[in-house]
């Protein structure tokens, strides 16, 4: 029935009384790059956190590669093989070296030997352009470097989809570009990605689908060309005005 790689159907999520997601539906194909934007508290982060079950939705269905995503072991396997995530606050493991940050997942969850994991980690550190930092600890790196390590850590699980939860929001302005560049290269390599961000220039460049959310609903969904030039809804127009004014 569901042909899309990721299929979100009528998903609702409550935090106590507050409804963070209201009947959200969204289909994403393999290879697509989706950028989600919207005011804070609109449910963007909640949506992608439901996709890898950092939050559990209360109603509706999420399916990835045909597997129902819930708290079952089958779903956990599907998530492990398919979905990587990058956080706003990086969430690197501060007590482990960069190399150990990267090899932990492959060794413990994918059953790799240390040699295999190190080889993999070296490859991805190279791709995020910090091969020389692997013996340092996270807090010895700049914010931009830390976020690139976090991207490499997620890539070491070799996922089919990458989720980015405001990857540049915690960064100093001069470090945003280096992180976006890495994400762009990843996009060009064909990685499926869903990115929550306020970086509209980046979105315009990378996305093939823009999603605008407000008050827990998807208000507008369009390719970036249409989305930025002729937004249909009032709320989206207002949002774009405010965010693009500067």
């Amino acid at each position, binding site marked *: 029935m569901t042909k899309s790689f990721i299929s979100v159907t009528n998903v609702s999520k409550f935090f106590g009384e507050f409804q963070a997601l209201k009947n959200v539906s969204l289909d994403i194909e393999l290879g697509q790059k989706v950028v989600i934007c919207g005011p804070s508290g609109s449910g963007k982060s909640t949506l992608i956190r439901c996709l890898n079950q*950092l939050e559990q939705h209360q109603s509706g269905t999420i399916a990835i590669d045909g597997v129902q995503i819930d708290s079952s072991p089958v779903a956990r396997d599907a998530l492990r093989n398919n979905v990587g995530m990058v956080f706003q606050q990086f*969430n690197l*493991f*501060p*007590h482990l070296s960069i190399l150990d940050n990267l090899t*932990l997942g492959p060794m413990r969850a*994918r059953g790799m030997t240390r040699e295999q994991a190190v080889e993999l980690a070296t490859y991805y550190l190279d791709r995020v352009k910090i091969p020389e930092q692997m013996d340092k600890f996270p807090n010895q790196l700049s914010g931009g470097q830390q976020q690139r390590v976090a991207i490499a850590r997620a890539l*070491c699980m070799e996922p089919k989809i990458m989720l980015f939860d405001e990857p540049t929001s915690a960064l100093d302005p001069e470090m945003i570009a280096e992180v976006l560049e890495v994400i762009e290269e990843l996009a060009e390599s064909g990685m499926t990605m869903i990115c929550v961000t306020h970086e509209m220039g980046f979105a315009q460049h990378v996305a093939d689908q823009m999603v605008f959310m407000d008050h827990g609903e998807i208000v507008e969904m369009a390719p970036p060309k249409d989305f930025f030039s002729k937004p249909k809804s009032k709320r989206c127009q207002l949002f774009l005005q405010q965010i693009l004014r500067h």
Partner: protein
Amino acid sequence: MLISRIGSLLPACMRRLAPLVIAAFALTGCTANWGWYVVNPTTASGQRNLWFLIDGLYYTIALSVTAILISVIVGLIIALPGLSKRRTPRAINRVYVELVRAVPILVLILWVYYGLPQVADISISVFWAGVLALAISDSAFQAEIFRAGIQSIDRGQYEASQSISLNYRDTMRFVILPQAIKRILPALGNQLVYMLKMSSLVSVIGMQELTRRANELVVTEYRPLEIYTILVLEYLVLILLVSFAVRWLENRMMAGDTR
């Protein structure tokens, strides 16, 4: 390397102790009631008495260290259900902690030594009765320390672990506990000091540790003032040394990263 480092610490803390020792002996000049002959190291009997007292150190340390090792493990096992989202495991944690904390250590020692063998139909040595009582009593505090330490770790660390598909055990073992233990190390050091002091209570069931030795010598020599003064100094030296060792270990672990 470890030994040489501790060696270099020793003179430093001994220097700090020196004024205390001098003060203690200076007090002896104030009154005619002191009779240091009882532990005078230049006489044969004094030397024998002194060694008799110091010999108790072995059991004081053996008791405390064994008990704290057990209580750390039990404490961790009790702490984990306390962090569960479900109610039943949390309740188990609460009941254990509240019950054990409510029993005075001395009462627990007496009960384990005199009561437990009858209830469980086992024989238990003085040493293991002491270890068991101290460990149980301390485990409730350890559980609370672990719980606080684990709860202080940022939620993002769990989420990152989940995002690279670590299961609960690996998340705890490789991500959460290494960070939590570093944070609770000062509290664990405090517990060790506390345990060294509380081990003196095991003297009531006949354990030949520092306090028991002192009591026995007082009975034969009738010099409580001098003998108990030595006892105070013994604990003082022991505990200051432990404090220094813990601080040294803390600094060393902090040097591992610059967090």
